């Protein structure tokens, strides 16, 4: 059983060696990067039970800060991740402290985080001298990695990006798995299942909610940086509510009760509209129908449904 669990990862790792279609590999790259955002969102939504609408804002802020650090200070991609993390932590603390100190729950938490997310988007949209407003920014740099034996390598081309984003996704999954398996993860679960009881048992719910919100936002910001450097273009719509909703849709479609569920959702929602040739409008309609039908017919998502079916037989 242990071997089977690693099989999909191995299959994904050898895929570019077998398959040379750039079209399909590109869909995989997008699925990996959006999967990073979806997996990290599930940390705060599926495992801690807080419906944050700030996720796309963290994603977009990550993209902008990394690019600005690279272009203004002429540092490498990796050094630029440090200010990205620092700024994401600072913003998460401000938003998180306001929301959690005042004990906002469910719908109210969603609305206030949505308000902050809109505020962030408006700032990015209107701070023309730094963000270039609606026109967005071109990202011409690419990250450079050092590989033993091969020297430093610029990440360019589909195969290189495939592995880069794949490793990014694995790191995100690993961080989430480590956090969730430790005592922190059990505190998150306690908060999700019964907040009052968790408090009675001596869990500092304020601290753990903030921690969950912060880790998720950091991982989302890193996903945003990778996304920006892959596409080579950043625009304010990265921070839009629609982007948050896309991420939520991925998590629900894949299943919110497991770490890898959101990756499945990311694959389906990224891949399906491209596999079927449709006009832009019909593609959006299909997307909406997938969302509606999954929620009505498979409320536990694809992975959740498969797991419960296997247990039943």
């Amino acid at each position, binding site marked *: 059983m242990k071997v089977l669990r690693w099989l999909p990862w191995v299959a994904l790792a050898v895929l570019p060696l077998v398959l040379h279609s750039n079209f399909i590999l590109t869909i995989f790259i997008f699925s990996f990067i959006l999967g990073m955002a979806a997996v990290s969102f599930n940390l705060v939504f599926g495992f801690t039970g807080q419906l944050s609408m700030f996720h796309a804002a963290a994603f977009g802020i990550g993209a902008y800060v990394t690019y600005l650090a690279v272009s203004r200070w002429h540092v490498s991609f990796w050094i630029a991740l440090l200010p990205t993390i620092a700024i994401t932590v600072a913003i998460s603390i401000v938003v998180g402290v306001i929301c959690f100190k005042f004990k906002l729950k469910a719908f109210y938490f969603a609305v206030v985080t949505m*308000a902050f997310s*809109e505020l962030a988007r408006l700032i990015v949209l209107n701070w023309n001298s730094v963000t270039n407003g609606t026109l967005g920014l071109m990202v011409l740099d690419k990250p450079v990695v050092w590989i033993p034996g091969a020297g430093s390598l610029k990440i360019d081309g589909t195969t290189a990006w495939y592995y880069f984003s794949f490793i990014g996704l694995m790191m995100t999954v690993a961080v989430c798995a480590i956090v969730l398996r430790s005592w922190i993860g059990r505190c998150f679960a306690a908060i999700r299942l019964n907040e009052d009881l968790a408090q009675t048992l001596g869990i500092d719910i304020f601290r753990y909610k903030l921690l969950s919100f912060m880790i998720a936002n950091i991982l989302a910001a890193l996903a945003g940086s990778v996304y920006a450097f892959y596409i080579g273009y950043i625009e304010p719509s990265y921070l839009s509510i629609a982007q948050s909703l896309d991420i939520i849709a991925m998590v629900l479609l894949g299943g919110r009760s497991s770490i890898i569920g959101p990756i499945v959702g990311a694959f389906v929602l990224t891949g399906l509209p491209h596999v079927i040739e449709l006009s832009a409008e019909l593609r959006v*309609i299909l997307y909406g129908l997938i969302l509606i039908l999954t929620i009505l017919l498979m409320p536990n998502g694809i992975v959740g449904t498969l797991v419960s079916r296997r247990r039943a037989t």
Partner: protein
Amino acid sequence: MMQLLIGQVLNGIIVGTLYGVIALGVTLTFGITGIVNFALGEFMMIGAYFTWYLVDFGGLPFAVALLPAVAGTAACGFLTDQLLFRFTRNNLVNGLLVSIGLISVVEAGALLLWSATPKEMSYVLTGSLQLGGISLPRMKLLVFGLLAAVILCTYAALSRTWMGRAAYAFAQNPEAAMLMGVKTARLQTGVVVYSTALAGFGGSLYASLYTLEPAMGGLYILKGVEAAILGGIGSPLGSLVGGLILGVTEAVGSIYLPSAFRDAYGLIFVVAILLYRPSGLFGADK
């Protein structure tokens, strides 16, 4: 300057009552079915396009076109309730996501049907009243009057009629209401349909003032939800007041402050009210 200020306040009031009518739908749906119907903005869009179609293609006068447009929107609302929302009662997250899926479907459908080109309806009522050097367009006054009347009538109906009290009873304690003979399934469907009809009515009146585009619903539902929270979830009068505060703040704020941030001024109010008075201005204390 005075003319500008008063003009902006008037614009704010008109837009604010439109927010208010959506907020009323949000509040009612939330109170009775436990979900927030984010697709209400789309029903507003549907109502607006129906009206435009009936007036410009059907050649009906605006006052006559209003009724079939609202009825058509309510029929769409009934359809979505029976097909979708019936299955998401009291499940906030699922209801939210189903309504978001519905937004994608309806908006893209509207793009296919009516294209992205903004549509403009012929003027319904021209001219304006002169009041001490200030001109008030008559159509805007009429729209404000009609929307405020609808909200106030809903408030009166909720507190005076048997159905209204049944709705209140159901919101407080569903089981007890059921035991007292309230037909709960019918009540829930009725409220969902009524809130879509309200949105359709708002859309019809919107069509008489502004240009239409398929994406118009998204903005109004966000403002409607904000207004509902500002006024207090569960309070019909609160949604009107919340909408007015939001509309006037944005309109007046964009004179003195950078207008690019007009969507943010209302949000600051909403966050402040949630932090210091979570039940909203008119909501019951808990």
